[in-house]
């Protein structure tokens, strides 16, 4: 707190530092700080800050005077004219500066995001030596949900690697402990954590504020908390040595350390760490190669080529690891790529997508480009109006060089103002940005000199470029020419300007098309018949492993509620059945067929509650006592793949020693994301365990029914607190990424259209002003307002329409690629493109229309008076 008081403003101090003579010779910073402190006490902090900033800016002014002496007078003059010019054309100036500022702020925000994403895991000291181990499945056609890469490894892998290879400096195993209930003296919290070997803290840089790196995770039943978690549970008390209870486990965990909170740019997010070997104490087998539930991280010697090392691993595993593991090839992924290049099944990392990064970066640059181009376009168009001013200046003796300097200075200054405004916009928009992304991104100007430098260069370039037309072109005129009005129309720029309009609108139309397509694909997903009914289904996650008889009792009680239409339970949600096994059968031709079959464990009521349609055979039924042991129901695709003409009654084993008989075939339903084709799937009852309880309810009195469900749940002393959600919502959440994608596009297209409209507005006003005389004459000759509006609009509308021709093919190609990632998708229909074109045209017409009408309704007498 004290420090903050004493530092008025880092930005201001940085500026002061740049005034070298004042700073180094006269110690201006110290002087100002001293007065600032006194002012803080006498007049309060905000007044003091104000004063500080004012002094800083004034100092800049005086410094310029010092450095440039007599020349600074001219500078003052230029400043005055710049502001005078801006004041006189308030609307135009505002549009121009605002447009550039908006473009700049988008650019900065996106760049911040990209920088954040690229900075993941860069805080680990040994970062460039750490790799993640993953498996690649060699056998074709047997991928899991379309993906042949797996992060999961057996527990024995890590120590084996360490013992065998000298290149391996260290290894650690990891697994996730999500949504664990931590209890301490009545306080209950659900937190996400990890289980890690003691080497974890040595390999990774998660600094300990209490406890020691070497010991913290050595013993069984040790736990390390993050500072905030410790704060939440213990307040300011000392947590070391105290014990926490976790979920329903018998042994308590002793707190052996506190680490600083995990930074936002870490691919692993957790608030506590449990020692890995605690799991051993709970009878988990760490010596077999079959239980692949863990993640392995290795740290290699500095300078080791990890690809060469992979080959060594391959050789070793071939010889040493058991056959079933041999299906896989072991490979390493550098830590730096963990966040953005995750293409694995079962990745514990917080994942982003490198493709998104490319996309967003591209969009950032495009928006910046449009904004800059706009600015240059508008300034250039407008400046031909200042020909008279140039004439006057020349008459009173301004040299050509002075005029050039004036215009260049003016345009650079306004560009600079736009930069300031833009940065201010960024600061205000930052909280919105954070909530959209779901995370905070640090934004500190003084820490990113590179960014400031780039922005300044851009602004300088933009400013100079846009000032160059009036500077060079106008200053060349002889004063007499100008004053006589003989400067001639600015026909030169016309082609370029029209091209720019086209360019901007093309971009806008592409973005609009993308937005519409994403939206319609999402709608398609939402409305496509999934093959089952998920309306009004309350899902209650059951975290307790052994429900036993409790489940039946609960179901019976709930069924008695008149608002309950059905109760069921299963191991997996019907929207996401991920459990899978490979089975080998002999098809009707007697050939061996290997298929991957997904399966879920269900109860008698599952198919009914979700209204899944039977194609052949029958549902599970209580009338058949053997069903819970032997019955299995498969879907159409499974029946097809198995290659049996009549699957009913046939047997196969979905797991090692199980032997199931097919009693029914259901119509295919979407039990996975729409990205994937429907694969073979089976439902059976053997080995039933319930992760989810489903209650289908009536639409009436939903809160009441839910309250009842909660009451029943609580009455049965289930350890975990009651939680529920609707299946529809869960379904929508699966497509959250796509929804975000859609929203992003929506925002970008709005911005693009906005900026393009701004540009068009400026151009239209310029164009109509150029044509005042022509319009006046036409009106006198009898043209109606409509005629004139039409005439003026036609020019630009043509270019907007041409923009369509360019953008349609590009948009089509891009969206087609995106849609390909969905196995089930809408098609790109003509109406989408027409709508986008229509919107763009509408905006264009509205923008031009305003100008045209204004010009068309002007009194011809006024416009013709100038002759």
């Amino acid at each position, binding site marked *: 707190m004290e420090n903050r008081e004493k530092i008025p403003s880092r930005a201001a101090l940085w500026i002061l530092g740049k005034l070298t003579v004042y700073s180094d*010779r*006269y110690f201006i910073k*110290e002087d100002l700080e*001293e007065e600032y402190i006194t002012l803080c006490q006498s007049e309060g902090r905000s007044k003091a800050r104000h004063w500080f900033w004012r002094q800083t800016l004034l*100092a800049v002014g005086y410094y310029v005077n010092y450095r440039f002496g007599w020349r600074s007078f001219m500078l003052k003059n230029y400043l005055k004219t710049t502001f005078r010019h801006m004041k006189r054309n308030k609307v135009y100036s505002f549009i121009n500066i605002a447009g550039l500022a908006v473009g700049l702020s988008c650019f900065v925000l996106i760049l911040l995001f990209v920088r954040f994403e690229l900075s993941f895991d860069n805080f680990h000291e040994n970062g460039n030596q750490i790799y993640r181990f993953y498996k690649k499945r060699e056998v074709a056609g047997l991928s899991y949900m379309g993906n042949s890469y797996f992060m999961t490894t057996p527990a024995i892998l890590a120590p084996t690697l360490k013992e065998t290879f000298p290149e391996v400096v260290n290894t650690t195993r990891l697994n996730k402990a999500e949504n664990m209930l931590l209890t301490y003296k009545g306080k209950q919290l659900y937190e996400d954590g990890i289980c890690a070997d003691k080497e974890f803290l040595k390999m990774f840089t998660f600094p300990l504020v209490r406890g020691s790196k070497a010991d913290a995770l050595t013993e069984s039943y040790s736990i390390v908390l993050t500072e905030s978690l410790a704060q939440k549970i213990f307040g300011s008390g000392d947590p070391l040595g105290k014990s926490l209870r976790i979920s329903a486990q018998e042994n308590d965990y002793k707190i052996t350390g506190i680490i600083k909170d995990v930074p936002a740019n870490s691919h692993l997010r957790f608030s506590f760490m449990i020692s890995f070997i605690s799991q051993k104490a709970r009878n988990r087998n760490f010596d077999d190669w079959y239980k692949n539930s863990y993640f392995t991280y290795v740290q290699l010697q500095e300078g080791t080529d990890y690809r060469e090392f992979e080959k060594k691993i391959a050789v070793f595993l071939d010889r040493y690891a058991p056959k079933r593991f041999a299906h896989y090839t072991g490979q390493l992924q550098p830590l730096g790529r963990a966040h953005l290049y995750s293409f694995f099944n079962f990745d514990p990392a917080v994942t982003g997508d490198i493709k998104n990064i490319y996309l967003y970066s591209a969009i950032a640059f495009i928006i910046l480009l449009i904004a800059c181009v706009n600015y240059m376009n508008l300034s250039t168009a407008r400046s031909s109006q200042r020909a008279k001013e140039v004439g006057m200046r020349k008459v009173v003796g301004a040299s050509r060089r002075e005029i050039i300097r004036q215009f260049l200075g003016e345009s650079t200054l306004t560009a600079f103002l736009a930069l300031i405004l833009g940065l201010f916009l960024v600061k205000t928009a930052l909280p919105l940005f954070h909530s959209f992304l779901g995370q905070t991104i640090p934004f500190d100007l003084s820490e990113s000199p590179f960014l400031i430098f780039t922005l300044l260069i851009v602004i300088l370039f933009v400013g100079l470029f846009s000032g160059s037309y009036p500077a060079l072109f106008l200053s060349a005129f002889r004063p007499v020419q100008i004053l006589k009005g003989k400067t001639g129309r600015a026909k030169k720029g016309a082609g370029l300007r029209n091209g720019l309009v086209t360019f901007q609108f093309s971009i806008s139309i592409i973005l609009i098309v993308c937005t519409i397509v994403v939206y319609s694909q999402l709608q398609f997903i939402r409305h496509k018949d999934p093959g089952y009914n998920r309306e009004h289904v309350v899902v209650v996650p059951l975290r307790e492993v052994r429900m036993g008889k409790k489940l039946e009792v609960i179901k019976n009680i709930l069924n008695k509620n008149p608002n309950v239409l059905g109760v069921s339970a299963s191991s997996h949600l019907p929207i996401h059945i991920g459990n899978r096994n490979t089975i080998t059968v002999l098809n009707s031709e007697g050939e061996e067929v290997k298929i991957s079959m997904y399966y879920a464990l269900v109860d008698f009521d599952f198919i009914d509650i979700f209204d899944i349609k039977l194609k052949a055979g029958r549902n599970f039924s209580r009338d058949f006592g053997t069903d819970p042991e032997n019955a299995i129901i498969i879907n159409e695709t499974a029946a097809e793949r198995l290659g049996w003409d009549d699957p009913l009654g046939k047997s196969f084993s979905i797991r090692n020693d199980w032997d199931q008989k097919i009693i029914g075939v259901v119509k295919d339903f979407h039990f996975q994301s729409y990205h994937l084709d429907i694969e073979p799937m089976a439902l059976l009852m053997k080995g039933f365990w319930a992760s989810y309880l489903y209650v289908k309810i009536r639409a009436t009195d939903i809160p009441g029914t839910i309250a009842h469900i909660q009451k029943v749940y609580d009455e049965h002393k289930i350890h975990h607190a009651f939680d529920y959600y609707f299946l529809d919502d869960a379904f929508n959440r699966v497509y959250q990424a796509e929804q975000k994608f859609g929203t992003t596009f929506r925002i970008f297209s709005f911005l693009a259209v906005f900026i393009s409209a701004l540009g068009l507005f400026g151009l239209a006003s310029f164009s109509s002003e150029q044509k005042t005389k022509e319009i006046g004459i036409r009106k006198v000759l009898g043209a109606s307002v409509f005629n004139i509006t039409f005439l003026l609009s036609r020019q630009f509308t043509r270019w907007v329409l041409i923009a369509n021709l360019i953008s349609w093919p590009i948009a089509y190609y891009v969206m087609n690629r995106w849609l390909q990632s969905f196995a089930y998708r809408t098609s790109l229909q003509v109406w989408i493109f027409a709508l986008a074109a229509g919107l763009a045209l509408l905006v264009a017409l509205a923008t031009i229309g305003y100008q045209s009408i204004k010009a068309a309704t002007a009194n011809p007498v006024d416009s013709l008076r100038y002759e």
Partner: protein
Amino acid sequence: MARLSRNEEIILLSIWKLDDNAYGVTIRKSFMEMTRQILHYGSLYNTLELLTRKGFVTCRESRPESRKGGRRKKLYYLTPTGRKALKEAQSVYRSVWGTVSDLEFKRK
């Protein structure tokens, strides 16, 4: 000897008056008290620079104060030339205004 401008005169005088404590903040304060006008730091430093170049003023860095948060300062002192300039300014003034008392400021 070239004439001192008003600002230069006041600043030189402030430096003299402040004895061993003439640095940015104090000189500015003294100036503003005397003239009841605001003097911005930039202007002050520019003038000091000019005065130094003319040889009227010299400076030395202070020893950082022993208390916590001590800052470094540049302390300014008059040179003999500077003193001479001030003395001359005073005598010119005397000679110019000598015969007039402000009570005589009436329309003639």
